[in-house]
């Protein structure tokens, strides 16, 4: 099987897993573009080195303010 066929099969799997069966059937180019874009997005910023770095916004129980960390 060629690599382009592998890629198409993988893209279809991703689209189906995302529940985008209809979009895959009717707007395939847009779905392929979206998969490529999402891959590119994740390389656009530095991952925090500190394993304990907290995401924003922190979870807080109702009625409290977020503390400094």
């Amino acid at each position, binding site marked *: 099987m060629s690599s382009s066929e592998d890629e198409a099969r993988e893209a279809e799997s*991703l689209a189906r897993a*995302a*529940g*985008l*069966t*209809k*979009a895959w059937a*009717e*707007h395939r180019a*847009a*779905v392929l*573009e*979206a*998969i490529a*874009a*999402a*891959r590119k*997005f*994740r*390389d*656009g*910023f*530095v*991952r*925090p080195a500190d394993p304990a*770095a*907290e*995401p*924003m*916004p922190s979870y807080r129980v109702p009625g409290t303010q977020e503390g400094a960390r």
Partner: protein
Amino acid sequence: MSAAAPSDLHELTLTEAAALVRDKRLSPVEYLRALRARAAALEPKLNAFIRPLWDEAEAAAREAEAEIARSGPRSPLHGLPVGLKDIIDLAGHPTTCHSKILLDNVKQEDAAVVARLRAAGAVFPGKLATHEFAIGGPTFELPFPPARNPWNPAHHPGGSSSGSGTAVAARMLPAALGTDTGGSVRNPATQCGIVGMKPTYGLVSRRGVFPLSFTLDHVGPMTRTVADNALLLNAMAGYDPLDPGSVERPAEDYTRDLGGGLKGLRIGFVRHFHETDTPATPEVAAALEEAARLLAREGAVVRDITLPKLGEFAAVNRVILTSEAAAVHEPWLRERPGDYAPLTLRRLLPGMFVGGVDYVQAQRRRRDLVAAVEAAFREVDLLLCASSMDPASRIDDEAETERTYPRQARTPFNVTGHPAISVMCGLSAGGLPIGMQLVGPSWSEAMLYRAAAGYERAAGWVERRPAL
């Protein structure tokens, strides 16, 4: 009852109109009719309005006029018109989001920010054009045509609060509301040569505003002058216990320091945004340099300052925005993908493929980026930086619009939540506006208005207007 000649009433700023109404020298009804006549003449080529509501607004203006005659104005906005981007709910009317998907989405309640304006006496002459769901772009494949730039209708007006920018710049309305998730108040403010404020996250309620990205969405005022913008924000701001992001703070008068001038303000010029990170066109760069010189001449202490690279802010914004937007749109993306314009579909679909880990990593990096901007505010009072790196492209040039739209420096302050205002700082050789941003620490809107008003007075760009 009117001080200005009827043919000139559309030129009144919100502040001028408020003073004339207060002194009973201007009828809100007469003012509204002048604006309606202006819109009737210009709308065929500008398309700012999705749903004109002039009759309903006139009835409200008539009631306002009677109440003002009896007991004076409730607030400076009493009887005065404010346009609404059509992702903001107005009771009794659809919020279409400029989309086929929500054409029949009639709302029973006002958005919280509209309720505040209504309580202040404002009237609402129309729902205004946007990019579809505030994320598409200028496109002709929607139920309503795209708004056009009053400075040159062959060009786009920026977006996504496109109709708001067009209506205000064209003097069809003195004020309008926009929303800003990746720069959508400040982009049309920049491209249309008006004033747009993205307030601090949590200052203005988002309840009743169709969400694009929960942690990045802001509602902001769009006006022709800085003073008008502060006046409008006075009525918009306030705690809303039903908006989980709303912050309870004492009420402020954002007009209080408008005359304070620039002397002594320490301004950090984020030059690397437009010089190296995303190089601006030469005329935009020159306008920014001239603005920095003028700010210094007016007494500000201007120095360069370095923030993380623009591309990092943009990448973090993109991952968060597309993920949160996909969560909002997931059912329609699955069942009705063909009901979006192709451009909107292309903007929304990537969020369906961003992994949960990437989303959390972006929110973790966001904290670092916030800390970096907070550190800058320990050295300076406010920041000066570019808004768009290019003047508005032709609206029919899809490739150029696609290329230039992301070339901007607004997303950093959606990521951090800091307040940022766009004001005009030049005109391109082609006669299109150029804008700049001033950015302040959280809750520093009054200081931003002070600085922007000082610049506005000194620079004089506010006197320029589109030749319509």
